[in-house]
């Protein structure tokens, strides 16, 4: 009876840790002028989320198929290697955001304890989302994740820009969730199932009448649109730059990393388990052309617009949209090469998590109280003023560009390989062309950091120093280099995880 507790251990550890930290914060007595909540909670949150990752990894070593209780929670939560892989990615993303917040919030006078429980519970929702094998638990996970993130975006209460981002994100997010729910209701109407496997079996069985089949197709489009919003694919990306820019930078990092990973996890699960039948997976009658169109639009539009941004944070927001586009190319390749394409997506998300969290962390270090380094001009000459931050920023941007000794190179390589192997040469070529465009705006940051000096008389952003942020940067840098120098082992793990999802 209690063996399912073991299978759910990663979720329980994170959830309990979040509750305890929340209680600890409520009972804490703080003197005026003393240390703020971040001093206690940042480390606590980091430990909680890291513990979640460790527990997930130990379940991986035990093997989820050996856990008797895992079957007890199916199909609502599916505990397999796919889930555990995402548990680790999401916990790492959340833990890095907690460390970044430990440096960022006190520096920018945003030091309120609520940030950390919201972050932890959002991560918990993301983990539920990644493991959901039923439309109901999928929706609960999605909302648990999103509600926390809406609040995190609006965390800078006095700022109109933050409020704008939060309201925009909330309204569009609710709309997307409604689309997803509507699609789910139609799927239930057409097939009589809410679990993804049951829907897949009904579609595969070919027993649906013409009208029901049409209903299932409409539902597929609605579900796809709802999830495309969460991965911020063009044309569902309008909220992304504003929300990312308005949110405090650690929350931006969390959104770019964990929310996107969880959305891709559930996108994969829905497409593979529910819409994995031969008809839905074919180019003529299924979702691949739709996803391919999304991928092409997402890559191209995001990269072209990102090149025109003057704010580095906004540029990184558009860059995260572009990366969603690259990932969607691999999603299309699921059609012919399911195992390899999924493995490449999982590896890409891992590499993208450490690179993006690191880039946002370096951006935090480049600015200080009242003067966030937002524009390229603010970064001028930072290579001399703050060599460590500049070097870290350069490393993570090179990884996002896809320059060889870094994680980003192999991530892109595997996605391109999956696309070419799957017979989608035009998509692979477009991806490479887009990477070249992206190199322009990533390398522009390096040019400003190392080759420009601030204009005389211009206000110079005093760089901040913070042990938390430096620690996060070290972890990210280690991840980027490890995945870049020894990619084979982690790719094998990713492919293991991918095969388990089928």
């Amino acid at each position, binding site marked *: *009876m209690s063996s399912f507790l073991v299978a759910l251990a990663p979720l329980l550890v994170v959830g309990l840790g979040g509750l305890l930290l929340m209680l600890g914060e*409520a*009972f804490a*007595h*703080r003197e005026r002028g003393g240390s703020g909540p971040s001093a206690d909670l940042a480390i606590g949150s980091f430990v909680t989320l890291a513990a979640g990752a460790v527990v997930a990894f130990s379940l991986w070593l035990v093997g989820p198929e050996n856990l008797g209780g895992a079957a007890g929670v199916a199909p609502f939560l599916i505990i397999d290697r796919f889930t555990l892989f995402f548990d680790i990615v999401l916990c790492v993303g959340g833990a890095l955001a907690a460390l970044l917040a430990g440096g960022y919030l006190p520096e920018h006078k*945003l*030091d*309120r304890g609520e940030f950390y429980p919201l972050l932890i519970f959002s991560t918990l929702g993301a983990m539920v989302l990644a493991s959901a094998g039923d439309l109901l638990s999928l929706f609960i996970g999605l909302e648990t994740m999103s509600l926390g993130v809406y609040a995190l975006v609006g965390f*800078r209460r006095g*700022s109109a820009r933050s409020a704008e981002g939060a309201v925009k994100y909330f309204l569009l997010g609710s709309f997307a969730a409604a689309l997803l729910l509507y699609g789910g209701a139609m799927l239930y109407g057409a097939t009589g199932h809410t679990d993804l496997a049951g829907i897949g079996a009904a579609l595969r069985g070919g027993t649906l009448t013409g009208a029901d089949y049409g209903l299932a197709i409409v539902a597929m489009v609605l579900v796809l649109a709802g999830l495309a919003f969460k991965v911020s694919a063009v044309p569902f990306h309008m909220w992304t730059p504003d929300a990312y820019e308005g949110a405090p930078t650690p929350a931006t990092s969390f959104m770019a990393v964990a929310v996107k990973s969880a959305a891709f996890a559930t996108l994969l699960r829905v497409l593979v388990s529910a819409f994995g039948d031969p008809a839905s997976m074919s180019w003529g009658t299924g979702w691949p052309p739709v996803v391919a169109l999304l991928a092409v639009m997402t890559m191209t539009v995001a990269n072209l617009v990102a090149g025109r941004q003057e704010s580095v944070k906004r540029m990184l927001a558009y860059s995260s949209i572009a990366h969603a586009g690259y990932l969607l190319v691999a999603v299309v390749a699921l059609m012919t090469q399911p195992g390899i394409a999924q493995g490449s997506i999982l590896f890409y998300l891992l590499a993208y998590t450490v690179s993006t969290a690191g880039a946002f962390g370096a951006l935090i270090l480049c600015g200080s109280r009242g003067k966030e380094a937002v524009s390229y001009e603010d970064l001028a000459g930072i290579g001399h003023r703050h060599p460590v931050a500049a070097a870290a920023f350069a490393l993570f941007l090179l990884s996002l560009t896809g320059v060889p000794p870094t994680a980003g190179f192999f991530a892109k390589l595997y996605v391109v390989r999956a696309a070419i192997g799957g017979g989608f040469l035009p998509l692979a070529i477009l991806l490479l062309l887009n990477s070249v465009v992206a190199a322009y705006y990533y390398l522009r940051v390096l040019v400003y950091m190392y080759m420009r000096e601030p204009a005389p008389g211009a206000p110079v952003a005093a760089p901040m120093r913070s042990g938390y942020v430096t620690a996060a940067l070290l972890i990210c840098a280690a991840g980027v280099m490890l995945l870049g120098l020894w990619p084979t082992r982690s790719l094998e793990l990713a492919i293991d995880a991918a095969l388990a999802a089928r």
Partner: protein
Amino acid sequence: MLTAYAMVGVFFIVAIGFVVGALLLGRLIRPNRMYPEKLQTYECGEEPVGPAWFNFNPRFYIVALIYIIFDVEIAFIYPVARVFRSWVNQGLGWFAFVEIFSFIAVLLVGLAYVWLKGDLDWIRAIKGDPRGAQGVSARARAAAEPAPMDEAA
């Protein structure tokens, strides 16, 4: 199967047609005599005062939000109470008891949090605002203190 949905479709068409028809009819037969007072924002018959963007006290919303804790609690406990006997008969009584108890415990943590943070106090001190400083517990004042986040942007 599809005919069942046709009812819904007819309902939608009639509903939309009713609204559009009523508005169209009104537009066709009403006189059109506009003067400045008519074009003002309606504010319960009063003349509108000041802009619509101003700060107002959110305490009602906080209380409403906290009420949801109890509301949701009841909504979820009721079905459990309904099936509890059959669970006991299956020998799963303790399981159901522990499960619903942990659910309540999680919600109680939320209640404890807002209580300790002073959100249940009707009168709260805001930093720099001498009004309302009396009658506020020391803890609520302390909780209201670390909120000077508004100048950052």
